């Protein structure tokens, strides 16, 4: 790597770093010192989120050229969006709705509502600081939540129990993706004592009747929100949001086409963190479309110049289940140590049906289809075959060498599936690593323990 490239890489890092801090500082400047202090007092997790620029170091460390640019751009998208979300703590709070991650936020945006995804803190905080949700997990367990419940709903419940939740006025949730998640909303409802609406996602979703049923559920949700919040559905706005989402999805498909190349032009966070944020938190945001176009352009430029994201890419893998929240640098270490490239994860892999925006009905059906057949929904409910079919499809489609499963100890839905998966992989001759760990709690299996599992796998199975 030449000196000029190194300087360019440093410039990318510091440019993004400065922009991010500008965005982070906007919040106290806008709210003033009194409100800021009050916010920090009411929501102590803000201290953790203020460290969000750490994410930039994590995802750019050891990455060069377009790969570094791509990862920096992803963090550059997350930070201002996050700061906008944090404005919801004090602005238009009568419109603030707490929603579960399986509820399509597009509808809430179109109704002019402000959103707070209840799982957001449980997802983002351990990414920024590995140990940051341990406190909330302990609070939930001390309140009687069984220790074997998934640590993500446990951390969400901990935030609620500790009275650190933003001033939300209504709750919309669903019966997905797991029992732990579902059960947490009963506690949230009891604790906050505000109206709640629960979407009923059908179990068998591969037919028109199921889509119609769930689209009707979404209609019911809109009616309920109009009754219990100041939000009013603007169907034209919903159409615009869905059209923007479609554009973003089209660029993501281009990006996926690019990463099929061996070696991959981009990898890891550029693929999965971008999806996690843009499709779940801010769908319909034009800056998300721009980001995916940029990522796709960077990937294609790398292909054109015969540059791989990971120098000397040796192995390609998929990560099944959500990414290791408290140890997202696992793959930057794996890249360096083994030339192992994370091509995609299961949370990013949605079949990406485009939403037909011609009528209100078709829009709702499109959104219904996305939710019903989305990752987690499709993998932790319904036939076990969904889990395996997707995984083996990705294995072939992206020309992978192995499958990694993030064997989150709290995910009972996938614990049984993994036993069958072992047998299937053995029969197909696919190397499989099931990483024993907890999604959000590094006290269960430490980073060293996770690395040890990776090392043993690479040494014994891949003979590295």
């Amino acid at each position, binding site marked *: 790597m030449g000196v000029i490239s190194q300087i360019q890489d440093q410039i990318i890092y510091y440019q993004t770093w400065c922009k991010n801090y500008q965005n982070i500082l906007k919040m106290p400047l806008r709210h003033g010192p009194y409100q800021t202090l009050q916010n920090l007092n009411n929501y102590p997790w803000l201290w953790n989120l203020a460290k969000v620029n750490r994410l930039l170091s994590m995802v750019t460390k050891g990455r060069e050229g377009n790969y570094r640019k791509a990862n920096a751009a992803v963090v550059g998208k997350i930070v201002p969006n996050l700061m906008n979300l944090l404005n919801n703590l004090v602005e238009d709070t009568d419109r603030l709705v707490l929603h579960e991650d399986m509820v399509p936020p597009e509808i809430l945006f179109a109704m002019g509502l402000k959103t707070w995804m209840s799982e957001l803190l449980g997802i983002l905080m351990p990414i920024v600081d590995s140990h940051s949700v341990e406190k909330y997990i302990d609070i939930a367990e001390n309140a009687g939540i069984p220790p074997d419940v998934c640590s993500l709903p446990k951390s969400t419940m901990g935030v609620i129990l500790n009275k650190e939740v933003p001033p939300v006025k209504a709750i919309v949730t669903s019966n997905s993706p797991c029992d732990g998640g579902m059960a947490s909303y009963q506690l949230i409802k009891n604790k906050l004592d505000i109206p709640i609406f629960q979407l009923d996602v059908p179990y068998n979703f591969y037919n028109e009747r199921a889509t119609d049923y769930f689209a009707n559920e979404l209609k019911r949700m809109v009616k309920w929100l109009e009754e219990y919040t100041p939000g009013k559905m603007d169907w034209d706005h919903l159409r615009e949001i869905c059209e923007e989402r479609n554009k973003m999805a089209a660029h993501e498909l281009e990006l996926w086409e690019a990463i099929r190349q061996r070696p991959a032009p981009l990898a890891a966070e550029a693929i999965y963190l971008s999806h996690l944020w843009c499709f779940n938190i801010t769908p319909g945001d034009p800056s998300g479309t721009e980001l995916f176009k940029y990522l796709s352009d960077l990937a294609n430029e790398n292909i054109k110049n015969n540059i791989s994201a990971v120098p000397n890419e040796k192995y390609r893998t998929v990560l099944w289940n959500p990414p290791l929240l408290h140890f997202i640098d696992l793959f930057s270490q794996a890249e360096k140590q083994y030339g192992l490239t994370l091509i995609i994860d299961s949370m990013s892999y949605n079949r990406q049906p485009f939403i037909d925006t011609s009528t209100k009905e078709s829009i709702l059906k499109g959104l219904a289809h996305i939710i019903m057949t989305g990752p987690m929904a499709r993998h932790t409910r319904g036939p076990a075959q969904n889990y395996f079919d997707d995984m083996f499809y990705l294995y072939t489609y992206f020309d992978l060498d192995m499958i990694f499963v993030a064997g989150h100890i709290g995910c009972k839905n996938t614990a049984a599936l993994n036993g069958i998966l*072992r*047998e299937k992989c*053995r029969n197909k001759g696919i190397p*499989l690593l099931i990483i024993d760990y907890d999604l959000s709690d590094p006290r269960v299996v430490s980073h060293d323990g996770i690395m040890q599992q990776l090392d*043993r796998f690479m*040494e*014994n*199975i891949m*003979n590295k």
Partner: protein
Amino acid sequence: MQNKLFAGCDVGSTTGKAVIINGNGIQGKAVCQSEIDPEETANIVLKKACESIGSGISPQDITYLIGTGYGRREVPFANENISEITCHAMGAFSCLKDTRTIIDIGGQDVKAISVGDNGSVIDFAMNDKCAAGTGRFFEMMANIFRMDISTFSNLSLQAKKIIPVTSQCSVFAETEVITLLAKRKNPADIAAGIQSSVAKRCFALLKKIGIQPLVTITGGCSNNKGLIKALESKLRLPIQILPVDPQLMGAYGAAVFAMKKHLGL
């Protein structure tokens, strides 16, 4: 080549093992108790293995040496180190080419290894979090019975029935066994219960990787006849006893690798 010596040194948690081979097979071998310092263990066991050959051979005369086991990075004179899982697979495969499944019961962990048709590791599963079912567990049990480990290993062979020992944890199992002995239950029947509970754990581990015949056992607990009988009953498959001391299998596999590496195979 026939005169060149190749060695494997397996520094385990409880014992150190060394095997020295040449083109004609095993020339020297040794086992010793592990010291606190893995390097010291390696030095002692290598010296002993050299002495077992005689003719003034010293560790410096070994052409290629591979370290394995938990202390593999501390083996002096080692040209490289390889994981014990890979070495056990190669060792067992080199002894019996039809080996496809290995249960390795060491002093402080248990591993199930699926072996390919070239001696490579296809899959593995291990329990290194819990002492139940390891060599240390058997030592604890033998201690309760006031027996040495080899006498305890054969005790269950005299059992008329199996008294189940249901505790999953070695500490609770100890309490359970003491209670059973206090109730004057037949010690052989209790010992059969202990062997059966360990066999169940091994079976669960083996199921993870898929059980394919030929199944064999390696590690320090491979001399435990009671355990082998209980395992065979659980697996409904015979466990093939290896022609080389199974406790040495990691070191032997490492020595085979050493020879192969030197020859560029």
